[in-house]
């Protein structure tokens, strides 16, 4: 899935979810949620809430003053010997990277896990330019071999069984591959080591960009992130402008929140802090380091104050893990590399309502995501705004919902807004439903409510409270 979506039809996607997906998702999310809960308990909920507030406040401060901190970061990276590029959109980012690759005659690039690079369809562009690009995070490597995108931002291949992965390795790598996690991991390790050592370019994302020293922070477990940023002679980091934080002290909060929220680890295995290329030729590391700062719609998100906090996200995946909708459909249904609640609010704004369509409605507004988000993004509040954008339009976008729906809403509200019409409607429904009702339920009803009855009966209209109330009072007055 490195092709960017032309239109997302969430309902259609949910009808194509393979039967075993739901169970696989829930197994993965239950594990992460359990591990997370244990660590939150160990810290104590009161302290965890203090951390969350601090995480929110430092990220909001950074986003509020983003221009200042980006300029500071740029100066610091340049002082440290790195080269900074600015990309307004996906096309520009891809072109910048391809230019660097061309200058260095890159034939093979190795890549760490980066949502930003998925967002811009980088792999597809590199391959079109005749450059082999390898995902090196094990889960991403697996789904890349399979030719699909990630099903979860932290564990991209969780939905595949070890038998399927073994078959994939046999088929695509031409090796003996037993269906055992340990052995499959070793096969991937050996294959990818050859590639790490041969690659002319390493590509990474960045979990955070520290403005005060121009430091890119990467948070990984496997070591591939370190490999990509240490072994090849050229390192290119693609980092969304929203990743900027003011200073190292910000990280004391954010690093306490991130791994605990994502996988229930206190810290991931490797947290790297990279400030430019190595300072002396005698140090091991890349000779050249590039940072591509990616906008691609983030500036537009910032234009709407109510939606600004979308950009606080630290990509932990906790909201995916807790979301009941995500738990039933998995990541592919969202049609975008970032899925779940944070994916919905991000993609709806990055792609715009013409492409994202009714994606903001892919939620029951249960609010579990709000409570679990380590940086307290008001996800459901943003969803409500995005829904309004779809049906009513706002300062940045005209309405995109069909006019018939909007007319229906206006008519419905008029009816409900008039006590007389409301009561009349209630009486009419009680009369009209008669042929459909049996023992207080309707098993079959006309469209669009038949979408309800395909799964469960609809209760009969039974409004008689007002008559009952009047009757009581009449009785009382006569007693």
């Amino acid at each position, binding site marked *: 899935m490195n092709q960017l979506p032309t239109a997302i039809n969430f309902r259609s996607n949910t009808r194509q979810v393979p039967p075993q997906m739901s169970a696989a998702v829930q197994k993965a999310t239950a594990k992460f949620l359990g591990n997370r809960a244990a660590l939150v308990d160990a810290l104590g909920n009161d302290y965890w809430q203090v951390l969350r507030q601090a995480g929110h406040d430092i990220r909001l*401060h950074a986003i509020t003053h983003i*221009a200042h901190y980006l300029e500071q970061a740029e100066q610091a990276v340049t002082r440290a010997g790195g080269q900074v590029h600015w990309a307004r959109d996906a096309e520009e980012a891809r072109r910048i990277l391809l230019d660097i690759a061309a200058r260095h005659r890159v034939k093979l690039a190795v890549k760490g896990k980066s949502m930003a690079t998925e967002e811009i369809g980088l792999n597809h562009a590199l391959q079109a330019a005749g450059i082999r690009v390898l995902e090196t995070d094990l889960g991403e490597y697996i789904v890349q071999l399979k030719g699909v995108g990630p099903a979860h931002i932290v564990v991209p291949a969780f939905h595949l069984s070890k038998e399927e992965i073994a078959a994939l390795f046999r088929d695509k790598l031409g090796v003996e591959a037993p269906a055992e996690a340990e052995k499959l991991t070793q096969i991937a390790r050996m294959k990818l*080591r050859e590639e790490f050592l041969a690659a002319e370019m390493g590509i990474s994302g960045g979990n955070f960009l520290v403005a005060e020293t121009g430091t890119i922070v990467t948070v990984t477990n496997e070591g591939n992130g370190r490999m990509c940023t240490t072994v090849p002679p050229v390192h290119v980091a693609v980092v969304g402008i929203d990743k900027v934080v003011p200073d*190292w002290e910000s990280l004391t909060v954010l690093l306490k929140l991130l791994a605990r929220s994502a996988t229930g680890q206190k810290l991931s295995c490797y947290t790297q802090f990279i400030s430019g290329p190595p300072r002396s030729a005698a140090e091991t590391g890349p000779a050249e380091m590039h940072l591509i*700062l990616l906008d691609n719609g983030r500036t537009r998100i910032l234009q709407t104050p109510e939606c600004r906090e979308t950009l606080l996200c630290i990509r932990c995946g906790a909201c995916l893990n807790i979301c009941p909708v995500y738990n039933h459909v998995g990541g592919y249904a969202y049609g975008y590399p970032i899925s779940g609640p944070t994916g919905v609010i991000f993609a709806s704004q990055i792609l715009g309502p013409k492409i994202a369509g009714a994606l903001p409605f892919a939620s029951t507004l249960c609010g579990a995501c709000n409570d679990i988000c380590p940086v307290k993004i008001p996800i459901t509040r943003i969803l409500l705004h995005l829904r309004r954008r779809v049906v009513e339009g706002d300062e940045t976008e005209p309405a995109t919902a069909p006019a018939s729906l909007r007319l229906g809403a206006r008519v419905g509200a008029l009816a409900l807004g008039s006590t007389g019409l409301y009561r009349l409607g209630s009486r009419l429904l009680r009369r009209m439903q008669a042929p459909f009702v049996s023992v207080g339920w309707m098993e079959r009803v006309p469209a669009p409510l038949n979408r309800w009855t395909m799964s469960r009966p609809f209760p009969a209209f039974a409004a008689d409270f007002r008559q009952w109330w009047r009757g009581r009072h009449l009785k009382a007055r006569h007693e």
Partner: protein
Amino acid sequence: MSRAREDILGKLEAAGGRRPGAPPAPIPPTARIAPRQPAGPETELTQLLTEIGRLNGVTRRLANREALAASLAELVRAEGVKRATCWTTPDLEAWGVAATLQRLGVEIVPGHADKQRVASCELGVTGVDAALPETGTLVLMSSPERPRVASLLPRVHLALLRPVVLRPDLHQVFAETREAGYTVLISGPSRTADIELTLTLGVHGPKSLYVWVMDAV
């Protein structure tokens, strides 16, 4: 400067409604947390070693040079080490690790040798610049004497640690690493749960992590 840069910064400043170049508001106090309070040095060290153990690292405390030499011999045998790459910091030199390994028949490959050769080493030996007990974390910086690849490419990473490098929290570590060009926090050997959520070690980074405390060495 590039058009893209001006465009992006222009849009950001317009969205923020602030004058370009105006300094940011101060960071709110609620955005900061206090560092963890450390217990006594022995408790802290015990906690560090316990946490490293939980992360599948193997720890040992060494009382003297003889213990170090014996442990190195044991490690070389157990892990089948034929080639090793080492940091060349004053500590590593003073402990004579490279020399001891050579006497055990291990070939020493310099950290900035050709990366294929470094990758063929079974063992990488480093010092530790700081350590965090709460999370079992080793902090390693980078310099000509501290090649990054030593803790990355070989299958076995041996980290030699002085108790004085323990720090209470990230705050203290960052005060020391802030101006450096490169730092890595290492918490256990390389791992993944990408295949059916089964934990496996040694994906791309080292599969084994040994942490030896050089108590009075």
